[in-house]
């Protein structure tokens, strides 16, 4: 077991019921686990939701995260995707002011301008962690005025 702190992407299937999100977030605070981000939504089965939780911890903490989540009655399945092949994405919406150079940069990163109002662009971007970092690097020199992020969602690559 390693004592090194690592980011893990934990995918949790839960009953789509009243109070489940509260149960999970209260578990994280009661056990002292740190959540970096949490995203929830319905799955292909409307009675089930999937939560993608990004959590930082060492191996022992992650083992406890997994076991404690499984202990909750409404949790159906817990997967540490970091141990498997996975694809992750995050959606960002932000407002930024700039010129035609900025537009070109945004185009290069496949960021979409949804609205323009007197030089203020409302931009949508979706990408992996690496792509998001590259976007931010490419936008250096421009000031982002307001931003909202969904938190990461992720899915395993294998068939199961």
């Amino acid at each position, binding site marked *: *077991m390693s004592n090194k702190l690592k980011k893990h992407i934990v995918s949790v299937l*839960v*009953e789509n019921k*009243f*109070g489940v999100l*509260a*149960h999970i977030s*209260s*578990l994280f605070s*009661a056990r002292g686990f740190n959540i970096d981000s949490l995203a929830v939504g319905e799955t292909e089965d409307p009675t089930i939701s999937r939560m993608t939780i990004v959590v930082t911890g060492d191996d*022992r903490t992650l*083992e*406890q995260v997994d*076991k*404690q989540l*499984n*202990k909750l*009655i*409404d*949790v*159906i399945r817990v997967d540490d995707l970091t141990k498997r092949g996975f694809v992750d994405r995050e959606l960002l919406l932000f407002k930024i002011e700039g010129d035609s150079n900025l537009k070109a940069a945004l185009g290069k990163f496949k960021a979409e301008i949804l609205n323009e109002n007197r030089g203020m662009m409302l931009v949508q971007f979706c990408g992996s962690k690496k792509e998001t970092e590259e976007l931010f690097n490419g936008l250096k020199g421009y000031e982002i005025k307001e931003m909202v992020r969904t938190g990461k969602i992720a899915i395993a690559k294998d068939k199961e």
Partner: protein
Amino acid sequence: MKLSGAQILINSLIKENVDVIFGIPGGYLLPVLDKLYDCKEIQFLLTRHEQGAAHAADGYARATGKVGVCMVTSGPGATNIVTGLATANFDSIPIVAITGQVNTNMIGNDAFQEADLTGISRSITKHNYLVKDVKDLARIIKEAFYIASTGRPGPVLIDLPKDVTLQEMDFNYPKKVNLRSYNPTYTGHPGQIKRAAALISESRRPVIYAGGGVIISGAEKELKELAEKNGIPVTTTLTGLGGFPETHPLSLKMLGMHGSAYANFAIMDSDLIIAVGSRFDDRVTGKIDEFAPDAKVIHIDIDPSSISKNVKVDIPIVGDCRSVLSDLNKKMNKKPNTNAWLKQIDGWKKTHPLTYRDDNKLRPQYIIEELNKLTEGKAIIATEVGQHQMWAALFYQHIKPRTFLTSGGLGTMGYGFPAAMGAQVGNPDKLVFDIAGDGSIQMNIQELATVAEYKIPVKILILNNSCLGMVRQWQELFYDKRYQSTPLKNPDFVKIAEGYGVKGIKVTKKQDVTKALKEAIKTAGPVLIDFHVEGEENVFPMVAPGNAINKMMGGLA
């Protein structure tokens, strides 16, 4: 025929074989109370404080193995059971708690006597429900009893708004529970069990470390077989007491901070720890970095999250203790050679016996020993929390499961008396004692009214040293005898008892102990004995906090 939610609740409880509900009424429970008025099958046992009701349900569950039920009203009634829920949750005790709630359309409106009980109880229950529609009620009750009593048991709370108890619906009690997300593992992995058997056969200094899981799963027979057939000594935790008879030559009694010296020496020197239904609590392991340095660990527990939480485990086996031990016994085909080990342990038992200064003074340990003699270790003993609890653990000989009821994990003062009450209700023919301290007993002393009213013949033994003794002991040993807020100016407990209509006896001399105990046992109703014991007595052996558990203090250890 359509029934009201209140009637559906009662019919469902009858289906679950509930015969007693401990509780206190309140406005939002009125429809339920009104239906109970005509119910012959269930007794509503009125306690005098909601905390008493929760602990009574807990004591009932621990002593009988059945699910305990308590029912209280919304708001303050419900917040008063929080300590009871946390106590039961920590020690894995099955309780179903029903709390009244304001009408569904008023929830969140700061209505009179409203409190968010599903929110408050989330981290101290195994699961909880807010019933929003009467059509869900029967299913929720079925699930609640199932969840409370299966897997690692625990309390389940059902928050029941008043309007739901008035809505009407056809009553169909579900036959089966259908929970895709909850499937506790009962049978241990055969490969792991085989590996465990091989490791046991190769060990030379094995110790079985048995916890409350042995009692919950009813594994005492299988545990005894594993120990006897293979010559392995057994130590138990506080909540495991009674899981292995202490009269047995292989018994090491309790281990840990106040464990027997030989149990602690044995576990520290062992080369293999077989943990059964125990969780390596800090009161057991002492300084974790120095705990049992040479030992490999086999850990059997139904709760995967208990395994590898505090110590590294070599062979984890998730499953019901009884089922796993039974399979393990079948797989054991070579007895380990433990002769030298058992001889060494016998040596420790002789050089470090469990003892105390038995002189002509009234010492608390003597009272427990006398009680043990008179009851032949067969009584049900509940305790509060503190010095008296440790003396009861150490000086009573625990031989049978479900006879020692104590708040192990949470350490709840005020637990013992109502728990004894609940245990007595579940076992009307048994002798039930609450061994209490003068501090603890005052935390639920109002239940004297309950035992008087219902003639519940619990015997309360107060080991009265006029202080909060365990904290005083720490102040003496580690804080320079600066006794901040631990001396107690107590009432006359005999008069208090008599005021409630309960027989009271005061004992100040050693020679009067046996007579008083005999009189209490002979008395048909409840009795309170106020023993004025030596105030300066400490609980030894003791491991100072932060030390390895073989570094014990106390001259007699």
